[in-house]
């Protein structure tokens, strides 16, 4: 068991002009499940390889427990990197499929057997140890693959998109299995994914990277409720938060005809505009001309609720994230028994306790 610390760790690839991972600072608690998430190219794999000892650290340090491992080779770090792609070998028993990598590491036979049996117990695979993988179900095979990592009993597990090529159903199953297994084993784990849903459902905490820079590290709840900046706000949550740039007035911000109470102090240095964010489920929908006027384009019925997709009637207002590819819709979740019609005009504004506001220039959170 061990803590992990990225201490202003920086990686600049040979020939690159900017760091791919820039002064990364994260403290990971003993036994914690930390998910590194972010868009493609943000530096997730690089960070993970730095921790594994497979990528040089140009500046800063990396600690495992109270050991500075910055200059240690991978095998001296006691971490296990779980491959993205796990093959299962048809002629080998389940036990051998789980234990064979230990042979490479020179672990002796009886010790391998002991560890395999222990892992099989945890994974509910005991009855199958002498069978061939062909006789297992999809989920069981996935557990054998996990067994391969568990038997190494490292201080830290490192996983880079281990679910990326599974079908949707198995992906969801395995996600839950990995998370609950990790909790039972209590081994510190750093898990990489580009999928924010995966991050939100699996992590004790999430670290969100963009362009090699850490944007926020926090619990899923906090990421969702208090995103540190516009990028985090837009990345976390599905459907995504509505983000609109609106004018600042003397007593708040103007959201269509509606005045949002943001607070003088917060707005003091904000300039003439702020970015207001509201999650689809936090939208107040009105028909009394109070708020921002939206024309309803599409309705997505979910039963109890429905999602309304619309566009601002005023051509001067655009949702953040709109680009050449197209305008982003404004999305609101409404009561499934009270759904507006396509083409109808509605008025919307954020419910008072659920307003997010960000500095227009820096993107930093105001409230």
């Amino acid at each position, binding site marked *: 068991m061990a803590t992990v610390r990225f201490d202003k760790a920086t990686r600049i690839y040979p020939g690159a002009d900017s760091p791919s991972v820039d002064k990364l600072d994260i403290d990971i608690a003993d036994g914690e499940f930390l998910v590194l998430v972010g868009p493609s190219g943000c530096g997730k794999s690089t960070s993970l390889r730095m921790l594994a000892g497979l990528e*040089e650290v140009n500046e800063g340090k990396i600690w495992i427990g109270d050991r500075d491992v910055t200059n240690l080779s991978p095998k001296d770090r006691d971490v296990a990197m779980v491959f993205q792609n796990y*093959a299962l070998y048809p002629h080998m028993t389940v036990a051998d499929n789980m234990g064979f990598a230990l042979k490479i590491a020179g672990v002796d036979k009886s010790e391998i057997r002991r560890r395999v049996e222990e892992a099989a117990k945890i994974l509910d695979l005991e009855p199958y140890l002498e069978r061939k993988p062909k006789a297992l179900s*999809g989920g069981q095979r996935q557990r054998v693959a996990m067994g391969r990592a568990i038997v190494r009993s490292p201080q830290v597990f490192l996983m880079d998109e281990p679910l990326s090529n599974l079908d949707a159903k198995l992906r969801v199953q395995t996600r839950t299995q990995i998370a609950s297994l990790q909790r039972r084993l209590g081994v510190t784990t750093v898990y990489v994914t580009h999928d924010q849903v995966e991050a939100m459902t699996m992590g004790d905490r999430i670290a969100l990277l963009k362009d090699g820079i850490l944007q926020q590290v926090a619990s899923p709840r906090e990421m969702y409720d208090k995103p540190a900046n516009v990028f985090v706000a837009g990345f976390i949550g599905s459907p995504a938060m509505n983000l609109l740039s609106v004018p600042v007035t003397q007593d708040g911000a103007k959201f269509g005809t509606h005045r949002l109470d943001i607070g003088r102090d917060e707005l003091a240095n904000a300039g003439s505009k702020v970015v207001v964010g509201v999650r689809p489920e936090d939208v107040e929908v009105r028909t009394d001309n109070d708020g921002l006027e939206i024309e309803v384009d599409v309705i997505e019925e979910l039963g109890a609720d429905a999602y309304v997709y619309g566009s601002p009637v005023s051509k001067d207002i655009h949702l953040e994230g709109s680009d050449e590819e197209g305008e982003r819709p404004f999305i609101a979740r409404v009561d499934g028994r009270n759904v507006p019609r396509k083409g109808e005009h509605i008025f919307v504004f954020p419910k008072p306790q659920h307003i997010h506001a960000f500095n227009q220039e820096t993107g930093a959170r105001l409230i």
Partner: protein
Amino acid sequence: MALEITAARADPALLDLPWDTPLEEWPDEILAAYPRGISRHVVRFVKLSGRVLAIKEIKTDIARREYEMLRNLRRLDLPSVEPFAVISGRVSRDGEQLDGALITRHLQYSLPYRALYSQSLRKGTASRLIDALAVLLVRLHLAGFWWGDVSLSNTLFRRDAGAFAAYLVDAETGELRVQLSDGQREHDLDIARVNIAGELMDLEAGGLLQEDRDPVEVSERIMTRYRELWSELTDTEIVDTGERWRVDERIRRLNALGFDVGELAMTTDIDGTSIQIQPKVVDAGHHSRRLLRLTGLDVRENQARRLLNDLDSYRAALGRQADDEENVAFDWLHEIYEPLVRSVPKELARKMEPAEFFHELLEHRWYLAEKLKRDLSLPEVKEDYLANVLPTKPDEKEVVGVDTVEMPVVAWDD
């Protein structure tokens, strides 16, 4: 969503395939039973408009990515399978969405390692496969490609004058950079090591590995071979200013390994007593390029080496060292090579490629000469080879029917 085909040159016949059926349920009549490596996706071969295609059922976005990646690899002249098309928008007859498909062209005369092991093998085959994979990995790394899933299963092998040439078949996890970091290369090597050990242990468990050497030990070879080759191709060497011949020697060593030096950096130190040399651009295929230039024959590296050797002996035997190399090559091609490889009866021609056949003849000549204690002409050797050896070889143009296994990445019962 409608069925959609993405391809550089789409073949309309693709539309006739039963895309509304999961690949696993395609009828045998349209399938070609070629051997495959271990895979998690369903892979099948079909014959279409005179060619054989490999179809892999896989999520559309991954298929697209892999298709693009394979195109890039081909553009960089790296040995890999040739992407043919991506199929998306598949819907089953009950209206359910099906995974997409990646289609590549079947690599003729290629063998998955498992198929090789179902034949009786020469000793040391595992090592030779690993050597070929090491060359492939070095070439991929030199070009900036991180594979992420290096394994024998993800490689196809073609015979190459007694050795093997390796081709990448599965680019799903790959990433292309301008230049890889040492860490990325080490990561690939680590993956290769574990996968190869696992694959050899699997053969052992299935009673297919004739060698008595320990798979763990054999798998270690990927690291040593890779490192040797990498350092020969990229290391900086310091030589005395008085020893300039060592620059030529370095180039000759690289040529011998099958590489041409496209660019060599040379710097002298301040007091001018030593020179630093470092190859900057190296291209594989030194011998095959040379043979291509001389004869128009497009063959693999070791085959080319073999053929060039024979061309040299031909030249020496006729005392034509002073002649233009091109002219000698022209005569050799028409007097020696072509008559021999053309004389293989059609029913035997599917067993091996012409250049490999020629290599086999040279080997057989040596063997017969030892046995009979006399020199033999190639036509003589050919008669014996056609009568006694070739018929016993398996058909390798499109090998059929050996054990292959899929371990699907789909959920079912649990």
